């Protein structure tokens, strides 16, 4: 079934404008391979599928996930002078702060809350034990250890922790695209795909930094 809303006036327009049809731009909807195309009225508007609940859940969850990354990078200034860590931290902070705003805008523009309902939220068990609420998020104990560390120790915990954190984001993107009806909004699709791609790249860079810091770790070809 074709889903275009045709304004009644358009039918009239098609009838009366036949004389200048050669000049008027045409709107075509191709068919499946081998099938003929359909000519649509010139005032046809394209449509998009509705947003899925999995889309909303993903954005709300990723806001929380990103917030921890920003919290981690905020420690860098007072905890390390390592220029490589400072550089990757600045890049992550900049990207993820920006993306949090992006996700909030996306949700609000669709009439959605920017955070998940707390009751029933996965990851917080009744006893308040250390449980990461989203894949890859650092536990409270890990965050305490990170805050307490300085210098090389901090660098190590930060890099290892951020790799863990980023890998969690990759799982979240994977889960999103494994949900029927999800990811059909171009805005969200682009964002999720880009978040996946850039976080993979950042993981690579951080793995390289960890490997450099750990010369005993078996170095492999890096070209």
């Amino acid at each position: 079934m074709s889903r275009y809303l045709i304004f009644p006036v358009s039918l009239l327009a098609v009838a009366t404008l036949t004389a200048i049809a050669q000049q008027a731009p045409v709107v075509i909807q191709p068919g499946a391979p081998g099938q003929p195309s359909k000519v649509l009225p010139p005032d046809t508007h394209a449509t998009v599928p509705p947003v899925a609940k999995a889309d909303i859940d993903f954005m709300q969850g990723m806001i929380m996930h990103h917030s921890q990354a920003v919290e981690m990078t905020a420690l860098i200034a007072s905890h390390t002078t390592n220029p490589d860590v400072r550089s990757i931290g600045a890049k992550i902070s900049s990207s993820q702060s920006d993306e949090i705003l992006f996700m909030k805008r996306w949700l609000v523009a669709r009439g959605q809350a920017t955070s998940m309902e707390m009751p029933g939220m996965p990851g917080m068990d009744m006893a308040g034990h250390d449980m990461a609420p989203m894949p890859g998020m650092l536990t409270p104990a890990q965050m305490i250890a990170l805050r307490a560390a300085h210098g090389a120790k901090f660098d190590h915990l930060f890099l290892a922790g951020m790799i863990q954190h980023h890998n969690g984001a990759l799982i979240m993107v994977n889960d999103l695209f494994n949900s029927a009806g999800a990811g059909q909004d171009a805005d969200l699709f682009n964002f999720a795909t880009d978040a996946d791609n850039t976080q993979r790249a950042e993981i690579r860079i951080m793995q390289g930094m960890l490997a450099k810091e750990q010369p005993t770790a078996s170095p492999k070809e890096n070209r």
Partner: protein
Amino acid sequence: MNLTSKPNLRWLVLPLAFAAFTTAAPSLRAQQPAADPKAAAKPAATDELDEFAPKPAPPLPAGMTGSSTTDPRFTLKAGMYDAADTSLGIKHLDFLKKPAPFRLDATSPDDPQVIKTLNQLGVGDPAKMPAALKPVIAQLAYANSDFAFQGTHLFQGNFYGISIYDIANPAQTKLLTTLICPGGQGDVSVYGNLLFMSVEMPNGRLDCGAQGFPADPPPPAPKEGEKPVSHLPSPEKDRFRGVRIFDISDILNPKQIAAVQTCRGSHTHTLVVDPNDKDNVYIYVSGTSFVRQSEELAGCSGDAPDKNPDTALFRIDVIKVPLAAPQDAKIVSNPRVFMDARTGALNGLNNGGNHESKPGDKAADTNQCHDITVYSAIGLAAGACSGNGILLDIKDPVHPKRVDAVNDPNYAYWHSASFSNDGTKVVFTDEWGGGLGARCRPNDPNKWGADAIFNLKDDKLSLQSYYKLPAAQGDTENCVAHNGSLIPIPGRDIEVQAWYQGGISIMDFTDASHPKEIAYYDRGPVDAKTLVLAGDWSAYWYNGHIYGSEIARGLDVFELTPTANLTQNEIDAAKAVQVRELNVQNQQKIEWPSNLIVAKAYLDQLSRSQAISASRIAEVQKAIAKAEGSNMATKDVDKLNKLAPSIESEGSKAKTPADAKRLLALAEILKHPSI
């Protein structure tokens, strides 16, 4: 087609980044990105959306510099169709709004169409939005993407279809045809009667339908204390992710003749024409998105290579298109371009992890290309492959082989590549932030989200410099390096490039270590208070004009105008190069005609670089003018011929390789001049 209105119809839904709706106060912060955010007292929130207003960039990391805030491009007035613009060496000739199917015509905030659209977008209560923003938000449906060109036709991709324009008179460009066929991102190529289109999103359908696919019913709630059972969505046989092929022999009624499915869809694709194969063309497919289930498309696996050696990761796909039977197009190979040649590991481009590597860490290996530019004339392709830039030998186009790879800690995402015409340089781009973010703010380092210029010698890449848009942009302008093409100015390496809402910048990279801007065009942001995804996706030179694909607004046409950095002769020499088709990622060797206009362009360059004396230049210029005036009278042509040997010998004494090449090329034209 169903002509009756259904209650569930959604006739226009805003697909791409749109914005929070803020009151005026945050915009003042937005305009002062360099100021201490704490210095400006935050006004009492009058709107729940205030918190989403853009925030200034964090301070520059030590040792980094940002772009200029004194450039006129930094402070242009915002507006959807009435933004201020400014330019240097570029004249804006024409602008066309997006075709009707991809836009909303209403401009009044109270227009019923606007209100209806906003309601359907789920905006909430449109009455709470600032009036000026309503039509802006409602306009932003359906993002434009990349271009292809053929004869007098321009093909503009869109996330929801393709628009075809008549550019016989570029200053009066006319829309011919709009194809509605969703699936993003609508990367396009054209070859003869065939038009190719990339589809990657899950809403893509074989039949070009716009309805997408429904969500499965929610699974039953897990019992207390049990984890929810994850379930995969139903496979959809009508879903299409891959490369569509249309027959455009009737430009007003294109038909889909083939749709080649791939596991990861097609984010971009590259047309490959093998000089030794007249019967087929090839398409390199770069997929960057998720791998679908094998239940939907047999053989697809997103597993790590150690788990499944046939994984759809760590490869590109090659489609062979038989020209006599394009409907039989199919995948003929899945080159493992990231393979470690020594170990055979498919994920050869990785950092080896570390002692704390956990399961899943391997996923960080470079497993995809974003875009590939092939240069068949030199048998090479440059792949921008997320974590790496790679160089491929494509002499056997079905079996490309990696010959070099580079990475760079400044690079977030290797996005696209182009060769210099002589094949001695490659310009890569870094799409830091995916194009969705403001990344040209005063505090954004100009080595991040920039071009990286490499020398290419003996199949080895070596980094020479970075180039970033020299003008800082505002907090509400998405901006990062994006798609560009060479401008065929003889004697120089010049690229025109799109920077999203940073506009268009023309860069001279003749000296790979010192690239510099020679011309630009920029508009103000779509909105002063909120970041709305817009700006130029691509800016390409085609047969004498520059075309800009504006994501939100439409299509721009420009021409070059002379400046101190570019003479009219150089522009005219570029216009002397005419091609039948242009698919920028299928790079073609530029050959200049042996025309006196090309000679005059070289002379202007030799004058600029002071490679030879002013009197010598004047002498040759005079002889050229005389020959032109006499319509190439024999004695005037003889005079030109006689000048050639001495110019040639000057070439051997030139101070720079660029001047040496110019002098030798000039001498060649003087030997065989034409007009």
